[in-house]
């Protein structure tokens, strides 16, 4: 499929930065567009995103372990203690990952296919799991509210409500997230990273800073 198309709603040109994107948002009419075979189908409209203060934006570039990436989309969540952004980043070799910005604490993670993930009902703080030779401990269970999307995503993600997340920590930089958005839980494994280590470019500018 070509990476150029037009918005079925407003006709504006839609350009994909990543050939594997499944979903994108029209920058002009905010229609949520999903690829169906060769066509783009409008499945909804993004409500106005709340004011947020992530310094990352679409087209922000950076590196993770010397591998360059660019931010092409995001999912925005809110919960009672604030909100956070999961920026969808695509590496130069086509691999897709997530750069999360939770109140300016940054982490990079990747979806890891894993069998036998624990169901959400069985989770409790302090539980330990071993995945890919790492020991992960459940530190926090967060029921978050899906707040909106922007840009290109690797899957359809547009009609969510409350979503349960489990944060798991380690004694190193590693962390894991269990995402219960779908009936089948998803496992993301990653690392906490310092802002400086990401070598971010094309950041959002803040007046006076």
């Amino acid at each position, binding site marked *: 499929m070509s990476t150029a198309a037009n918005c079925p709603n407003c006709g504006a040109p839609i350009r994909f930065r990543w050939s594997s994107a499944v979903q994108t948002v029209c920058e002009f009419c905010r229609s949520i567009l999903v690829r169906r075979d060769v066509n783009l189908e409008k499945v909804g409209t993004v409500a106005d995103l709340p004011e*947020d203060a992530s310094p990352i934006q679409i087209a922000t570039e950076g590196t993770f372990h010397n591998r360059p990436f660019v931010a092409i989309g995001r999912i925005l969540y809110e919960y009672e203690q604030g909100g956070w952004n999961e920026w969808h980043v695509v590496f130069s070799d086509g691999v897709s990952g997530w750069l999360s910005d939770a109140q*300016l*604490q940054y982490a990079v993670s990747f979806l890891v296919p894993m069998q036998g993930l624990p169901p959400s009902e069985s989770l409790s703080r302090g539980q330990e799991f071993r995945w890919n030779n790492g020991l992960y401990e459940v530190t926090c269970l967060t029921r978050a509210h899906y707040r909106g999307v922007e840009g290109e995503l690797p899957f359809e993600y547009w009609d969510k409500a409350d979503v349960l997340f489990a944060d798991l920590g380690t004694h190193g930089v590693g962390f894991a997230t269990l995402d219960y958005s779908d009936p089948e839980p998803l496992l993301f494994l990653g690392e906490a990273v310092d802002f400086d280590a990401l070598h971010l470019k094309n950041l959002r500018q803040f007046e*006076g800073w």
Partner: protein
Amino acid sequence: MSAPHPPQVKALNCPGCGAPLTIRGMAHTLTVVCPNCLSVLDAKDPNLQVLQQFEAQQRFEPLIPLGTRGKWHGDPYEVIGFQIRGIEVDGAVYTWAEYLLFNPYKGFRYLTEYQGHWNDVTVLRTMPEVTAMGPRPVARYFGEVYKHFQTAEAETRFVLGEFPWQVRVGEKVTAMDFVAPPRMLSSETTAEETTWSQGEYTPAAKIWEAFKLPGKPAAPVGVFENQPSPYRGGPKHVWLMFLILLAALFVVAMFTSAIAAKQVVLQGDYSFTPGNTGEPSFVTPPFEMKGRPCNVELSIRTDLSNNWAYFHLALINADTGDAADFGREISYYSGSDSDGSWSEGGPTDNVLIPTVAAGHYYLRVEPEMDATGAPMHYSIQLRRDVPSMSYFWIAALLLLIPPIFTTFRSIIFESRRWAESDYAPSSD
């Protein structure tokens, strides 16, 4: 895609009292506390709904005013929030101040202050590993071991400005401190989660300089839990210094010993028969001592066995007639009993005569023994410029003073540190 840039400093008014409010922490700010009426307001609500109104028994003024910007760790940071938290120990309340620093890219950091002691604090992303080691737990974090200092319930007592979380006066957390001066780890546990932070003891002057604060910071009171000991590197450092100096002293001692003349000036073999009626005393032939004044070693070797002898001795200067009188007793007994063989004393004797000037000398010798004893054969040797290890030992003892003093001071400092902990000797 060009997102609209909202103004970063929002001008608002407190719904409680109408006072102007400033939001500096952008969309990160969840709660803002009116500086005038101290209402805790919901920053996410367009009408700034009042979440809490607290009666402050005492109003605290931040030492670093809200809105102050400084360069901290190479980046600009702005003070946007201030809170006073406290713990209660045996009915006494101990409070400290926390300053929230904000940079829109680097995120949030804290400065904490307790009685003039400042800490530079960051929230950790990695969980330290807490293990019980004996009665005192330790926390391990990236290879460093932190000793448990205190566990207490910390209560928020006063808040001002902005917070990226739901701040409330009266909120309580279980706080644990672990120390490895100059660093410390703190955990705060709520019903939902445990957060860890790391603090580094920071001289107040550094903060005054970074945030261009007027005047001088107040001098810290007492010893803080992660305050580095002024006895740098602890007593280990001074003991290492002591060993280095001791080695140097040893080299000097070896050197002086090597260059000492150790010159034999008199050597004679004699015998003495007790009970003889003749005059027991005699004088040796004269001998000459040359060169600088130096010590003289007198050695007496006898064939005494289960017997004793006393030597009246005088080193006489033939040129001036000056005499140095002294006496030596030699006794040697040995045998065996039910516990095995034993011995007491020895058949030889050495004595050092300090600082003898150059000149001609002779030695006067008068042995004395039990009249019934066996005859004694003995030899006398005089050597000048003999290396003496006693100076070495005196110097070594003097060298011991600084490390012992520092160790003592360090122990006092550490006991003052731990006096405030859960492990104070007097605490229950």
